[in-house]
């Protein structure tokens, strides 16, 4: 395998008059804007033929300076003086950049970049350009393979990209808590114990919440993962703030994050006609209890495993979007949810049956801003309920 030495990650002259972030392997799209005192996105454009001489020279310089072939080729691709990069201009260049200068669009935090060019608050790669669909949904890349996330003096490293593992390195006294079945491995020196969240076993079981929560206290390493293909989404939370989170996606949290079950007021009442008897049943499409995570007594980190791919959008005040209830991954608490039952129009003899409110209906979760909502592409599909909705916190929309 390659034992090449490459210039360490840092800010370097890209040979075009800009200081560009070198991830340690590749040039990124981030350049340092000295005038504005911040980073900005400027995609790297590979020069066309005609710059061969300088590229070759750069390659030669890089090799002579002991840098690896990737550095040389990256330098060659951009026409950069890689010798400058390899020569150790890094330290002074990097030192001149104030820490916490990168504004991450995914976790909305300002932080420093890691050695791989990742946001140290959430692990998403700074190189990733915003991928936004025409409708306004933006892909949330999740924490990438081998990315680091800093939690004070402790940290998390992500390993894998199908069913990624979050590997916590806890310093003495630091802790995380998590559902017991997310444990992957732990070093023996890590102190594992029961996490007391103030909710009894029966209360949690009745609410369908995670039954057993454990805590792990450093020093040592512990790794956690879920059981689906997907992405790890890290949400740094400021003191006093919180998120609503879908059932069963919670992977871990720092002790300053408190888990508070909150009775859900989104419900439906169905009428079941069984011969001459009629029964009524109440259902909670988002569960009987909301899972709310709040940062108390200081900021903290909430780590989720999002099944499938993750997308988010920031709703403006009064802006509304409809999604399947089970698709919601997390939302800001400023977003208002309610249920909508939508009935497509029908013609002919079937119309009488279908407009009587069952079978041919779609149940939506309507979300109104302001605030962020995130969805995941893999979720439990609603099983069409064969009974009419007769009551609930639901709006009816008939076509």
């Amino acid at each position: 395998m390659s034992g090449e030495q490459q210039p360490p990650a840092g800010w370097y002259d890209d040979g075009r008059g800009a200081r560009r972030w070198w991830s340690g392997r590749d040039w990124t799209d981030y350049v340092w804007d000295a005038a504005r005192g911040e980073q900005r996105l400027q995609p790297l454009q590979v020069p066309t033929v005609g710059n061969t001489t300088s590229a070759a020279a750069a390659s030669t310089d890089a090799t002579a300076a002991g840098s690896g072939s990737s550095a040389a080729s990256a330098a060659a691709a951009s026409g950069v003086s890689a010798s400058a990069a390899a020569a150790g201009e890094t330290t002074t260049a990097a030192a001149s950049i104030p820490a916490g200068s990168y504004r991450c669009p995914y976790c909305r935090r300002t932080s420093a970049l890691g050695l791989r060019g990742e946001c140290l608050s959430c692990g998403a790669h700074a190189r990733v350009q915003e991928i936004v669909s025409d409708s306004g949904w933006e892909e949330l890349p999740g924490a990438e393979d081998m990315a680091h996330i800093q939690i004070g003096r402790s940290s998390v490293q992500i390993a894998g990209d199908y069913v990624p593992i979050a590997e916590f390195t806890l310093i003495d006294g630091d802790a995380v808590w998590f559902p017991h079945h997310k444990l992957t491995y732990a070093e023996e020196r890590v102190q594992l114990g029961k996490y007391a969240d103030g909710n009894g076993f029966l209360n949690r079981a009745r609410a369908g919440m995670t039954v057993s929560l454990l805590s792990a206290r450093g020093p040592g390493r512990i790794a956690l993962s879920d059981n689906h293909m997907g992405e790890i989404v890290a949400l740094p939370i400021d003191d006093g703030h919180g998120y609503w989170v879908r059932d069963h996606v919670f992977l871990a949290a720092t002790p300053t994050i408190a888990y508070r079950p909150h009775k859900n007021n989104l419900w439906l009442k169905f009428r079941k006609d069984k011969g001459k008897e009629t029964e009524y049943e109440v259902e909670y499409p988002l569960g009987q209890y909301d899972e709310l995570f709040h940062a108390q007594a200081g900021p903290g980190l909430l780590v989720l495993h999002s099944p499938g791919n993750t997308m988010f959008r920031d709703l403006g005040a009064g802006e509304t979007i409809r999604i399947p209830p089970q698709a919601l991954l997390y939302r800001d608490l400023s977003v208002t949810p309610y249920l909508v039952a939508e009935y497509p129009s029908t013609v002919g003899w079937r119309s009488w049956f279908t407009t009587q409110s069952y079978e041919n209906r779609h149940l939506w979760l309507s979300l109104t801003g302001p605030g962020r909502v995130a969805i995941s592409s893999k979720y439990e599909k609603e099983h069409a309920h064969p009974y009419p909705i007769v009551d609930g916190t639901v709006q009816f929309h008939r076509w």
Partner: protein
Amino acid sequence: MELIVCSWCRLNNAPDAIQCATCGAPLDADDKVSDSGWREAPRLRDMEKFSFSGSTLQVEGKYVPVAEIELHQNDRVYFEQHTMLWKDPHVPLSQYNLPARRRAHGMPYSVLTAGGAGRIAFSRDAPGELVVMPIHADTELDVREHAFLLASHAVDYTFQRIKGLANLLHGGSGMYLDRFFARGEPGMLMLHGNGDVLQRTLGSDERILVEPGRFLYKDASVAMNTFAIPGLKVGLLGGKIWVAEMVGPGRVGIQSMYHHTSSED
């Protein structure tokens, strides 16, 4: 020109090789090792080929990859019956002589042998990755039940029921440990790990606690013990949490996702 040593299987390759001829690992990509020393198994690229004995194996797909083999006429591979995806009609099948009775999914456990010449393909039924584990002569590898996809005829196979371990969710109902041993000549073993696969080499007497459902494989030199986390009781009845204590020296492989298969005696 120096030969390139594959960091996964430790065998030599030609100086200009971009993938290992023995295990298929990419030679032109950096190893991914976390700070704690877990190394990601090399991701076999879609349509990548490598040889074992006189046969050729090609990997197809990315999420639930398929292993497609062109068997040489003198070669045989064996595999669990339900992992067979397709085969040429003329490829003969025979029952592998198992050391004991065993059941899986409520059905009799069946291992078949396919002989060359001809093509045959295998896959499992969960997203994950294929991991090639060359078995050097006179060495043994212990593998979680239902994780092996195929093995070459040079590798002997047996299994052992171990009690008290399955995974945290399914409790201490036990599981089978499949054992692969190469006598005299090296052989090839291919595993399907659910999710991502990581490996760590433990030093002598070095210990690590692994959730039993994530355990994938270990060298025979690594001891695996059931271990109740001290002072920890969960659930209404105050049950213990059992994990697997792995004690070095040797390699331990884990998978990031478990896919529980019911196995019975």
